């Protein structure tokens, strides 16, 4: 068919996803002397979940998994990107690089010149992907505007919030129960793994954090 959307489609204008937490800086000490002036990509950050006087603050770093908005109702249902950080469509990449290669030092931390995350040194791809996908499923159940969520919110309105007040004496709303299950799942994952995940609830669903030593 002579569909103008297809006929004149220019793929160059399509938006591409990338990890907006990372940024470039030229302010680093190269690990090996080099003449080429490059930038390093800051892909890990200080651990702001622990007190800054603690040992954990000095020995651990945070990697931020960004939110993705390519799911249904992304403003209501927070979902996190299941793409390995560094492999997003608009990430800074070199061909055939599959792991983190430090190139420079900045503020006593090592960084590479691509978006590739050092996370894969501590956890394998499939585990990371499956953990994030499971967290996403919990979030869908907790926040999707349908089914039990809608039913409970309607009863809440038409009883003048008495339903929630009485219900919370015994249990929680469905949405809150799902979020509690999600937190319990994350705690279980943290017991078995060298990488520690922080629940997205603590960050206001702005990012999921992985703490690495």
């Amino acid at each position, binding site marked *: 068919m002579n569909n103008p959307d297809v006929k004149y489609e220019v793929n160059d204008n399509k*938006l591409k996803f990338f990890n*907006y937490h990372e*940024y470039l800086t030229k302010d680093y000490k190269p690990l090996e002397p080099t003449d080429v002036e490059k930038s390093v990509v800051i892909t890990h950050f200080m651990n702001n979940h*622990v007190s*800054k006087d603690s040992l954990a603050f000095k020995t651990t770093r945070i990697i931020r998994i960004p939110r993705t908005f390519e799911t249904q109702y*992304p*403003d*209501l249902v927070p979902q996190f990107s299941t793409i390995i950080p560094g492999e997003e469509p608009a990430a800074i990449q070199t061909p055939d690089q599959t792991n983190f290669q430090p190139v420079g030092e900045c503020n006593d931390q090592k960084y590479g010149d691509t978006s590739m995350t050092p996370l894969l040194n501590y956890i394998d791809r499939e585990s990371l992907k499956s953990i994030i996908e499971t967290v996403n499923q919990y979030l869908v159940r907790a926040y999707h505007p349908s089914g039990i969520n809608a039913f409970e919110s309607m009863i809440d309105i038409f009883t003048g919030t008495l339903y929630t007040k009485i219900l919370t004496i015994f249990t929680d709303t469905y949405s809150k129960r799902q*979020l509690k299950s999600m937190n319990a799942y994350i705690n279980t994952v943290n017991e078995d793994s060298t990488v520690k995940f922080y629940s997205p609830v603590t960050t206001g669903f702005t990012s999921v954090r992985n703490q690495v030593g």
Partner: protein
Amino acid sequence: MSDSKNANPKWWHILITNWIIADPNYMLEVNGGPSRNYQVQKYSNMKHLYLFGGRLRTVKQLPLNLIVGGLMILLGILFWIFEASWFWHKLSPAIPIVFSYCWFISFTMFIKAATSDPGILPRNMHLPNYPTRIKDEDDKTIEGSSSDPIVANPDEYFNTITLPYYDDKYNGVNVKYCTTCHIWRPPRSSHCGVCNVCVVNHDHHCIYINNCVGLRNYKYFLWFVLFTVISNIYVTVTTFVHIFHYLSTDSNLKSFKHSIETYPGTFVTLILSILTLIYPLSILIIHICLTSQNLTTREYLNNVRPNKNFVHVFDTHSMLKNFYITWIGRSRGVSSFRLRDQSMAGDIRLENLPPLE
């Protein structure tokens, strides 16, 4: 810095300043200091006031919410005194019962919209690097030095990023970094200048409920406005019927003047209900128009009104679906920053950091 007079504040003094009406700027030091998150926020320009141990909140502005609440209570009382028993015996007990239910829902929704969390995002989650300066609540530098150079902040954090959306890969959604709160805000979130916080799906800051309207309390706000209008129309109609009942055959009254003289309270209620109907009704109509497109007030004012070609990607293009999402389906979720939790020493979410420059 406590003198001997304040060294042992009385228990009722502590109860009032640290629990009943808690202003984080004026906490009393108790046995080692305040202990819950709502008591130790150190940001500058903090506008929130916490009631009953951090369970309710309001903003330090002109207390128009008290006037609105007062008017609602007044209208209810006027109906119950002047109308309820007349209708109960003359027509049906259902009439005052239905009004009471509508009034109850409207009042509880008002309390919920005015005192609950609109979806405030925690601060300082996405600092690009370690801050060299930390300030106290009076904006005095307590760590680092005012002359310390601010660590070079990335240019990328000052751009608005556009990312692909679910079913629109060309227009996409905007993600912006808030330099005051130091976070990457989700799309549709905004920094409220009055409350000095970032709010998810920020609709507007309502001066009549003295709170922001955002993701977590938009539903309560909408149903509050709707039930207020319903209750108001109900009172208008019932008082109208009551006043003009003299026209029917089973009344002893002969004229309008006679009717008003017999039922002066009803007449006052009628006038009051008509006057207080105008503003809520206009707000209701505005929000019905906005929710039919899944649009927030901010998006309308900032994007749609100035730019006729603005593409609103969150519009599901089905009015029923849009109404469903905004009025019915939206889940309240949980608070992102738990005010009543025990505060952690060195919690960076509570620190007063200078805005990113």
